[in-house]
């Protein structure tokens, strides 16, 4: 087990969380190898978002171990520490800073010192501006850099949030339903974007859209009632009768 932990970017073992007696996570175990992309599927209430919460420090697990990069115990750290370590998170509902411009959103996310005095005297360097230009290109928002984030379309907000994740330069990206509310064309584009991102970092994607998961073409983990029901290629898990019963069959 320990050896498995040291060769992983993310390692969860026997993680349980309960809210008022309801077991949101029930002895969940999951190992993600460096450079891997993993899709997590499961019905509503399966514990997908709670899993993201325990990894990013928003919720403390009642029991179990969570290690990042083989050595760092995430259960002792808070959100800011974990983000600084290199775990980025995209939320289900696109959460960008609406009253600020696309440029400001990216600048806030950019990997720079995070203390109040560092930001108070911060002056943006040519290097940072170049990095932002590259990101804008990557998320297809170059033409809208000075627009308020509130004025972006839903799909563009999703992309901006992905751009903010990239700006953080994380080792591991947790992406919650990136294709929700997108048109088919945008969904396909998002899959391409994520595959591109996966070339340089590990990614965990939670998604409902089966076409999208198929487009990604990666190993799939099915969650049910807070633990892993099945794991493997999409064709393999979708042939599993238990998976069909709890999820796909409906």
């Amino acid at each position, binding site marked *: 087990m320990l050896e498995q932990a040291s060769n992983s970017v993310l390692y969860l073992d026997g993680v349980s969380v309960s809210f008022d007696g309801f077991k949101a996570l029930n002895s969940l175990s999951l190992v993600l190898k460096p450079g891997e992309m993993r899709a997590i599927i499961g019905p509503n209430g399966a514990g997908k978002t709670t899993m993201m919460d325990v990894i990013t420090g928003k919720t403390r697990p009642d029991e179990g171990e969570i290690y990042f990069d083989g050595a760092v115990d995430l259960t002792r750290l808070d959100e800011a520490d974990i983000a600084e370590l290199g775990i980025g998170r995209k939320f289900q509902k696109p*959460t960008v*800073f609406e009253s*600020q411009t696309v440029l400001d959103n990216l600048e*806030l996310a950019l990997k720079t010192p995070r203390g109040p005095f560092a*930001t108070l005297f911060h*002056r943006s360097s040519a290097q940072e501006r170049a990095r932002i230009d590259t990101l804008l290109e990557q998320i297809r928002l170059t033409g809208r850099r000075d627009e308020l984030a509130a004025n972006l379309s839903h799909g563009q907000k999703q992309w901006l949030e992905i751009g903010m994740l990239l700006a953080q330069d994380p080792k591991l990206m947790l992406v919650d339903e990136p294709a929700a509310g997108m048109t088919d064309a945008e969904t396909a584009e998002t899959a391409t974007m994520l595959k591109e991102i996966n070339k340089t970092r590990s990614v965990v994607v939670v998604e409902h859209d089966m076409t999208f998961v198929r487009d990604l073409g990666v190993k799939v983990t099915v969650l049910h009632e807070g633990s892993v029901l099945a794991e493997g290629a999409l064709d393999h898990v979708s042939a599993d009768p238990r998976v069909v019963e709890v999820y796909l069959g409906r």
Partner: protein
Amino acid sequence: MITAFLLRAFDGKALVFMGVLAAFAIAIPAGNLLFPPDHALHVPVYVVSLLGKYMCYALLALSVDLVWGYCGILSLGHGAFFALGGYAMGMYLMRQIGTRGVYGNPDLPDFMVFLNWKELPWYWTGFDVFPFAALMVLVVPGLLAFVFGWFAFRSRVTGVYLSIITQAMTYALLLAFFRNDMGFGGNNGLTDFKDILGYSVQADGTRAALFFASVAAVAIGFVIARAVTRSKLGKVLIAVRDAESRTRFLGYRVEHYKLFVWVLSAMMAGVAGALYVPQVGIINPGEFAPANSIELVIWVAVGGRGTLVGAVLGAVLVNFAKTWFTGVFPEFWLFALGGLFVAVTLFLPRGIVGMIGQHWSALRQRRVSARAEAGSDEDPREGEIANAMNHQAAE
């Protein structure tokens, strides 16, 4: 580094505002000192003091706008920091009275003699020295804000709960300062001041100088607040205001940011209180009254929160209205204030300055698109925006 930081505060709008302040700072004292009382341009001394008082309120409103408008912390207890700054100044002024008090005691202020105290309490030590008192004007409110903020922000107390405990804080201080054995003059507070820095507080020249200092303090406070809000730290503050937990997931330690801006704001409020006391001639526990803190939130809401200029404007306008109202229909002022707050919330949710800004940008956008439709791109920058907008429309 500091210069570059402060220079960030200046742009067209800021320069116009500073120009108005400078004209005000010179014209009012000049009107009082240079023209004889029967001259048409003479400014009576009571007007100088009244306007000086407004300027102190304006600085106080700026401090509230900094935490509320930019970081979303609705403080209903900022009057406490103002009053503490005021008390620090009041203690200095008390020590300047010397033997000119009613009892003529060289060591003790009158109220201590009256209470039969034999010696000065330890915490009055040093207040006879102006630089020390001036330092305490910053340190005392700053320290209280630091301790309060440290616990509140670390425990992630936000929203209405935070507002309620700020209110409780100022109320607790109100009760404490009412007690005679606190050593701050009980419910009479500190008054009967004679000199400040060796000049009589009653003299016209001193009043003009205090007015000038108050306008200068507003200007300095404005520059600092604007430099802070236009820095990257300011962007983080707005991010905290709009989506606190998202900011945390970006790796920012939200409680440190809140603590920074909270302490800065408390110090600004302290300075406002310190300038207020010599101009009104008294500081008593009434300044801690929760109603005061609520009223000053209304000034900021009327002027437009998150605009800085709006806070100054709101403080001056509402207090001008208050002066007029309490002169003409004294019993109706609180109704008028309540009505004003309801009206602003319903019809001017972004305040006066916020509304003007909104109309201004809408107008500019209309002009840009009109020009784009006419097909002439006189201003290349605006043309670019128009193109982008056309492109958007085509999509």
